[in-house]
C-alpha cells in the first residue's frame, strides 16, 4: 500500500488482492474525509466465452462453459443444460433432476468449505492466511479439508471427476450411478454433516462488525426446496418473475473501470445475489437440521450483515449435506439416464444457484441446433455494484483506522462475497485509493 501526500487528498494503492479468485482491483477514493467513489476494477482481459459459443453445437455449452471456473463448473453445466433444454422443449425425468441436485450439493460443499476455511476464516481469526492459521488451528483446518474432500467425492461419483465433471449433458447424464455407488457416499456425507454443524458453531462465535445494509436481494425460489438447481426469481421487494424474464428485469451495463459488466435490477438498481440473498428469501425452505443450526447461530429469518455470510455459507453446507443424503437414501436403480433431445430453432433460458449466487444463461439456437447467440451472467458480476456500495459505507465509517488495518478490513469486506472474478471475466487485483 502506498500513499501519495497531499493536504486534503491522498491515494492508497494496494497490490494484488489475495484470497479471491482471479485478479482485479478495488479503488476507494476519499476526498477531505468523505468517501466520494468506490470502484471494483477488473482488468483481466475478457475471455469471450459468449463469442466462443457461437457456431457450436447445442450439445456443447455445458462442457465448454464449465471451463469458465474450476470452483463452480457444475453451476455452468447446470445453467447451460437448463437453457438448452428450455430452447428445445426438453423435460428431463425426476431422477435426472435429483441427480443434478446431488451433483450441485457436492459443488456447494467443496466451494463453501474452501472459502470458509482457507480464505475467509483467517480474516476473522487475525491471520494473514491459511498456512499461518493452520499452525494454531490444525484440527479446524483439517475439518475444512475433510469437508472439501467430501464435496469432491460427491462430484467424482456423480460427475465422473471432482473438477470439471464430465457426466452431465443436455437431456440428463451419460450414466446414472448405482445404488451401491451412492450408498458408498453415505458415511462420507454423514461425517460431512457432522463437520458442517461444527462449522456453523465455530463461525457463529466469530466477532462481526456492526454493519448492515438495506440490500435488494435476488435469488431463486422453488415450490418446496432450498434453491440449487432450479427455481424462478424472487426479490426482497417481493417481485417475482420467471427465468425467461431475467433480461427484462436485469440489465447489464459497461463501466469504464471494469471489464466485467455491472448489473442493475429494474426499479431497484444495484442488487445482491448469493448466500445472504438465498437464505433471506428461502429461510422457510431450509431442511430441518439446517434451520435448527441457523436458529442456534442466531441468524434469524433474514441476514443483512455481509460479514455474517460466513455463517450462512456454513448453514448452506448443512443444507447441501442434508439434501445429498436425502437423494442418496432415496435412490433406486433402473432410472433413465437421459431423454432424447430433438433439435429445433429456439430461445432458451436457464438459471441455477451457483455457490456465489444466481448464474443465468440464455441461448438462441438455429434450426440445426447451432448456437447463434449466447449470454452468460455470472453472480460476481451481478454483485459488483453491491460490493462497491458496501465498501463506500464501510470505509466511511473507518477512516480513523491506519491504512494497513483499513486495507485489511476492506479485503475482508470484499471476501464476504467470495468473489470469483475469474467467472466475471477472470483474474482480480485490489486497489484502494484515498485522496
Amino acid at each position, binding site marked *: 500500500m502506498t500513499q501519495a501526500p497531499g493536504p486534503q487528498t491522498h491515494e492508497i494503492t494496494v*497490490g*494484488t488482492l*489475495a*484470497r*479471491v*479468485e*482471479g*485478479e482485479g482491483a478495488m479503488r476507494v477514493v476519499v476526498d477531505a474525509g468523505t468517501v466520494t467513489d468506490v470502484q471494483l476494477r477488473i482488468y483481466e482481459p475478457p475471455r469471450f466465452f459468449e463469442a466462443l459459443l457461437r457456431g457450436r453445437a447445442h450439445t456443447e455449452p455445458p462442457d465448454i462453459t464449465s471451463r469458465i471456473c*474450476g*470452483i463452480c463448473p457444475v453451476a455452468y453445466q447446470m445453467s447451460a443444460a437448463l437453457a438448452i433444454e428450455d430452447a428445445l422443449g426438453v423435460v428431463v425425468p425426476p431422477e435426472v433432476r435429483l441427480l443434478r441436485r446431488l451433483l450441485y450439493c457436492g459443488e456447494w460443499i467443496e466451494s463453501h468449505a*474452501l472459502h470458509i476455511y*482457507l*480464505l475467509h476464516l483467517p480474516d476473522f481469526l487475525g491471520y494473514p*492466511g*491459511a*498456512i499461518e492459521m*493452520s*499452525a494454531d488451528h*490444525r484440527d479446524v*483446518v*483439517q475439518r475444512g*479439508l*475433510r469437508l*472439501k*474432500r467430501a464435496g*469432491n467425492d460427491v462430484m467424482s461419483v456423480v460427475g465422473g471427476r*471432482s*473438477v*470439471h465433471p464430465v457426466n452431465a449433458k443436455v437431456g440428463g447424464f451419460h450414466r446414472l450411478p448405482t445404488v451401491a455407488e451412492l450408498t458408498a457416499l453415505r458415511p462420507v456425507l454423514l461425517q460431512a454433516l457432522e463437520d458442517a454443524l461444527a462449522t456453523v458453531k465455530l463461525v457463529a462465535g466469530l466477532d462481526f462488525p456492526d454493519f448492515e445494509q438495506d440490500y435488494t436481494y435476488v435469488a431463486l425460489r422453488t415450490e418446496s426446496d432450498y434453491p440449487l438447481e432450479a427455481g424462478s426469481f424472487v426479490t426482497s421487494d417481493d417481485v417475482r418473475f420467471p427465468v425467461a424474464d431475467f433480461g427484462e428485469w436485469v440489465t447489464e451495463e459497461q463501466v469504464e473501470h471494469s471489464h466485467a459488466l455491472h448489473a442493475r435490477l429494474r426499479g431497484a438498481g444495484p442488487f445482491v445475489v448469493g448466500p445472504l440473498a438465498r437464505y433471506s428469501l428461502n429461510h422457510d425452505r431450509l431442511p430441518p437440521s439446517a434451520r435448527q443450526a441457523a436458529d442456534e447461530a442466531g441468524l434469524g429469518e433474514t441476514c443483512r450483515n455481509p460479514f455474517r455470510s460466513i455463517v450462512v455459507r456454513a448453514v448452506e453446507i448443512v443444507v447441501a449435506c442434508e439434501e445429498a443424503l436425502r437423494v442418496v437414501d432415496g435412490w433406486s436403480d433402473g432410472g433413465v439416464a437421459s431423454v432424447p433431445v430433438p433439435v429445433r430453432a429456439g430461445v432458451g433460458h436457464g438459471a441455477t444457484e451457483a455457490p456465489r449466487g444466481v448464474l443465468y444463461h440464455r441461448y438462441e439456437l438455429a434450426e440445426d441446433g447451432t448456437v447463434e447467440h449466447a449470454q452468460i451472467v455470472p453472480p460476481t458480476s451481478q454483485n459488483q455494484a453491491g460490493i462497491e456500495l458496501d465498501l463506500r459505507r464501510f470505509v466511511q465509517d473507518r477512516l480513523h483506522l491506519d491504512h494497513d488495518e483499513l486495507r485489511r478490513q476492506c479485503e475482508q469486506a470484499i471476501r464476504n462475497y467470495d468473489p*470469483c472474478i*475469474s467467472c466475471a471475466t477472470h483474474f482480480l487485483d485490489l486497489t484502494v485509493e484515498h485522496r
Partner: protein
Amino acid sequence: MLLVGVGNPMRGDDGAGPEVARRLADLHVEGLVVATGMEPLALLSELTQPTAYDGVVVVDATAPRADPGRVRVLRESDGGWAVPASPVASHALGLAEVLELARVLGLLPPYLTVVGVEGSCFDLGADLSEPVREGVEEAVAVVAGIAAARADRT
C-alpha cells in the same frame, strides 16, 4: 509411495505433470500410486485420505528460465521451496503453499520430492513443446528410479 502429477493438460507445457503421471500409470510401477490434479490442492486432498503413504513425489511444470525441458529434482532437505509472501490467487493455491500447508498440518510423509520440468509455452490449447516432451521422458525415468530404489529398501 504416491505420485501426483500437477498441471493443466490444456495449457501447453503445464501438462507435463499429468503426462508424467499418465506414463507412469501405464508402466504399473510396483509400489507407486499415481494421481493427477489440475491444481496443487488436489495433492492436499490425496494427503488427507486415510491411506497413509510413506513417500510422495510431485511432478509439476516449472516457470521458464531459458532451459525448457530441464528436469530439476528438489528435496525438502536440500532447502525446499520458498512460499510466496503474497499469494496471487486464492482458490488455486500454489504448490509451495500447499506443501507448506500440508507440512503445518502434519500431513507430509517422511519422504517428499518435487520433480520439476521447465516449461516454455503455457498457451491455452497448446500441446507439450518438444523440449518438454523430452523432459517428460527424463522425469518418468527419474520417478521410476526413485520408486525402484525405495521398493528395494523396503
